[in-house]
């Protein structure tokens, strides 16, 4: 049985179903109880699961992640919420030096089954400290897995897999997807897993490959539609879904076919995650590429406040279209 759910509802349902099934799963985060989280993701969960399992924390990101980590190595399966992904920086030692490295430092003697859910991305006019896409900072850290769902179906399946995973998983949600009616989609009622490390082709095409993450997958699909209708250009749109582990094969497979690659992400282009994708493709797909790998990403600046500037900083359909046309030159 499937119903139409928003991205936000799909995420909530994944947590509800796992919490009903496994008493070791609990939530910890700021304003996740009565308030239901800054974006309403956990609305109603306090009523169903109570204060012990919906742990409303003080504003203490570092302690939230430290506590989640300590509870994980002793048998719980915490799902911690960092209200805005910008604030993972406050917990960065606990994330990168503790949770990520415990298994390795202790020679596999301890496991850290935990998920850190956080809302990333811009478009809300929240400016430089509430709009960042910091996935590159965590994707570089061995021991972490990094997931960025782009639609309701993936969001539920990937979150269930993340909660079932015995490693720390950074699960980055996008604010512009939460309630957007445009992206409502069919989601099965029952629990299902989408394996971490498997990308997904959201639209098949033979002219050019587009690799994107999170909200940029939706933007890429919209650009692809336009290009198909107006210019008969068929883009293949690949959603890698998990940045780490990365499904490089699905990308290489597509390039074999198209010979061209455009990488699209929201973070500032310099030092962003797509650099890794471009580097791997340029090395492993060198012989198949008949054009340089291009990147469309955020400008090299913090996310500005004013709408006109924010829309300039964050990639839109126009920039994606133009890059495709340039590549097909």
């Amino acid at each position, binding site marked *: 049985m499937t119903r139409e759910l928003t991205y936000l509802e799909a995420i909530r349902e994944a947590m509800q179903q796992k919490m009903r099934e496994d008493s070791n799963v609990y939530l910890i985060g*700021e*304003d996740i*109880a*009565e*308030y239901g989280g*800054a974006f309403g993701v956990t609305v109603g969960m306090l009523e169903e699961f109570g204060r012990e399992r919906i742990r*409303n924390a*003080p*504003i*203490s*990101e*570092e*302690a939230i992640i430290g506590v989640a980590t300590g509870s994980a190595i002793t048998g719980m399966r915490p799902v911690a919420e960092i209200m805005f992904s*910008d*604030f993972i920086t*406050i917990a960065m030692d606990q994330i990168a030096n503790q949770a990520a490295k415990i298994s390795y430092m202790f020679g596999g003697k301890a496991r850290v089954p935990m998920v850190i859910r956080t809302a990333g991305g811009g478009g*809300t*006019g*929240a*400016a*430089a*400290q*509430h709009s960042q896409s910091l996935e590159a900072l965590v994707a570089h850290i061995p021991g972490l897995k990094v997931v960025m769902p782009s639609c309701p179906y993936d969001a539920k399946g990937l979150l269930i897999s993340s909660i079932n995973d015995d490693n720390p998983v950074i699960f980055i949600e996008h604010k512009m997807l939460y309630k957007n009616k445009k992206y409502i989609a069919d989601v099965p009622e029952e629990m299902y897993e989408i394996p971490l490390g498997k990308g997904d082709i959201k639209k098949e095409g033979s002219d050019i490959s587009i690799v994107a993450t999170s909200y940029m997958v939706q933007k890429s699909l919209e650009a692809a539609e336009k290009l198909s209708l107006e210019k008969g250009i068929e883009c293949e749109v690949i959603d890698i879904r998990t940045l780490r582990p990365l499904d490089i094969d699905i990308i290489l497979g597509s390039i074999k076919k198209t010979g061209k690659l455009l990488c699209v992400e929201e973070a500032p282009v310099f030092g962003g995650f797509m650099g890794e994708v471009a580097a791997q493709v340029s090395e492993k797909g060198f012989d198949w590429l008949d054009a340089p790998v291009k990147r469309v990403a955020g*400008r*090299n*600046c*913090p996310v*500005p*406040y*004013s*709408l*006109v*500037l*924010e*829309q*300039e*900083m964050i990639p839109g359909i126009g920039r994606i279209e133009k890059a495709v046309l340039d590549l097909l030159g």
Partner: protein
Amino acid sequence: MKKDPKATKKLYINVDGYEMEDKFTGLNSNLKIEMLKKMYEIRHFENETEQFIIRGMIHGTCHLYTGEEATAVGAIYAIKSDDYITSTHRGHGHCIAKGADLNIMMAELLGKRTGYSKGKGGSMHIADVKSGNLGANGVVGGSIGIATGAALTCKMKKNGKIVVCFFGDGAANQGIFHSSINMASIWDLPVIYLCENNVYGMSTSIKEAFNIEKISDRKNAYGIEGLTIDGNNLVEVLNAVSYFADRCRAGKGPVLIESLTYRWSGHSKSDAQVYRTREEIKKWMEKDPIKRYREILIDGKILTEKDDRDLEKEVISKIQEASEFAKESPFPDPSEVEDDVYA
């Protein structure tokens, strides 16, 4: 602060166990009226902002200071105009009290090029370093270290300045609160940590986030002075901050002041306020800091009911000008997006 020559002998009061001079009574009338005017400016600036939000003219969120005016105005009028402050996500009040230009502020809220940050910062990122405002901050607790560093500058440059660091009750549980205040204490830095305890951090009440009665008791963890004051009583705020400002200037190190107040509006643009009751809000609105201060001035014959009405009218039209200026100002040009990333 300019003293009224008529007021010669000092009056003393006791606030939370501290014997301190009643500096307020000695102030001249113009200054006393100016403070009321500032409170009106904050109140009506926020009302206008709320209108912009309702009309969807503000891209992004705003955190209104309505109901907390006495804390910002009392504290900032207790220090010198070239002293420093650091502010928070709920920063309009501090900014206005420190002397910001309302037109330029409002323009920033509307994302205009004429705003304080040329439209790049918005409500949560207004700074006016020239007027000593080192900036609002979108990160809860984020400015506590910065304020401490500014105090280090004051000490190293021996410029006689001090810093007032505003932050909320919620920020008092962040790690940087702890490490920064400890550092200020061991180095005797001239900074007043002013915790605006407005009962909630977003939806989380102080009862839920703390296991202590008074946040100011945390002074004992650092060996510094501090106290809890009525943050809706401008006179008490001004006297307490004046007292400790002198102490800071004398090189006696930092202090922690907890100012008890309450936010009237929701936390931000979107807040159903399920976590608090109408009764509670009503109870606090009866303690309206503006009403209380106005009465003090009227009883003290410092202004008449009519003066007061005229003052408020004047402020309202000033705010209207500000929003006209903001509305008519141009948006930044997309080509400016990468400007100012580097000095």
